């Protein structure tokens, strides 16, 4: 029997999700600031910092939940201040820490590689904001405790991902691929 913790006071978010959501919200402001000051690499640096911080905070969450017997406790967080039958909840166990950690690690690699790969593209502020929100959505899917929370984070991930598929809209290929990736979140039959 693993240990269980239950948190229901106030508005709580686990640290990786908090880091990614707040990082995604601040990212457009960083983009505006970067264009004003002239430091264009500030956006890339912010994305690398946010994804690295998400990975580190996953590790901190892992250490926080490890018990002295060697297994990992299950933590149920009622996010909206209501208990789970009437409000959404997050449920963090070993599998969700593993999945969120791999999302953060792959996102960190994506951030590092896209510094050079997206160098010649425009609209980079939107790109880094979308990637950060997609990572936040995937982390939320891994940590969701009920279908309501899962649905919200699924739509967050889906919206960001098919906008990212159609990101280079000056060519016909990404647009068509984006329109064909769109039903993966809405149920439009593929033709």
């Amino acid at each position, binding site marked *: 029997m693993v240990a269980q913790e239950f948190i229901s006071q106030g508005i709580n978010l686990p640290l990786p999700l908090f880091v990614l959501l707040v990082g995604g919200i601040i990212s457009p402001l960083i983009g505006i600031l970067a264009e004003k000051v002239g430091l264009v690499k500030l956006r890339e640096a912010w994305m690398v910092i946010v994804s690295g911080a998400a990975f580190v905070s996953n590790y901190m969450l892992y250490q926080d939940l490890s018990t002295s017997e060697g297994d990992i406790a299950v933590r149920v967080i009622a996010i909206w201040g209501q208990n789970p039958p009437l409000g959404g909840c997050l449920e963090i166990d070993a599998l969700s820490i593993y999945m969120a950690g791999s999302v953060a690690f792959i996102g960190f690699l994506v951030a590092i590689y896209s510094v050079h790969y997206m160098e010649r593209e425009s609209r980079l502020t939107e790109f880094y904001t979308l990637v950060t929100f997609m990572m936040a959505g995937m982390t939320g899917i891994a940590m969701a405790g009920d279908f309501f929370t899962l*649905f919200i984070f699924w*739509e967050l991930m889906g*919206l960001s991902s098919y906008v990212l598929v*159609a990101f280079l809209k000056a*060519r016909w290929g990404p647009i068509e*691929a984006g*329109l064909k990736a*769109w039903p993966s979140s809405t149920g439009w*039959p593929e033709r």
Partner: protein
Amino acid sequence: MLPLSPFLVSVALMLVIGLGCLMIKRDMVRLLIGVEILFNAANLCFIAFSTQNIGFVDPFAHSVVMMAIVLDGTVIAVGLAMVLNVYKHYKTLDIRKLRRLRW
């Protein structure tokens, strides 16, 4: 407690109309309208079943549907933006013309 059958009949009709629209129409904007009808059928089904408790209306279904309406709006907005970009590149709204992406 409201009677359930009128709502379920409307949900079935809306499902048939939406799926028929997706199967028959070729205009992309009409396909988006079909998807929107399907969304609304699902939401109406949620609301109809939330009234079936004796003594109270389930508030959780209402919060789910409220969130779902917002998310449907964003999904349709992104879809319309993509249709606009498709029209810029292909000069048509016919879904059958989107066949360049093949191997």
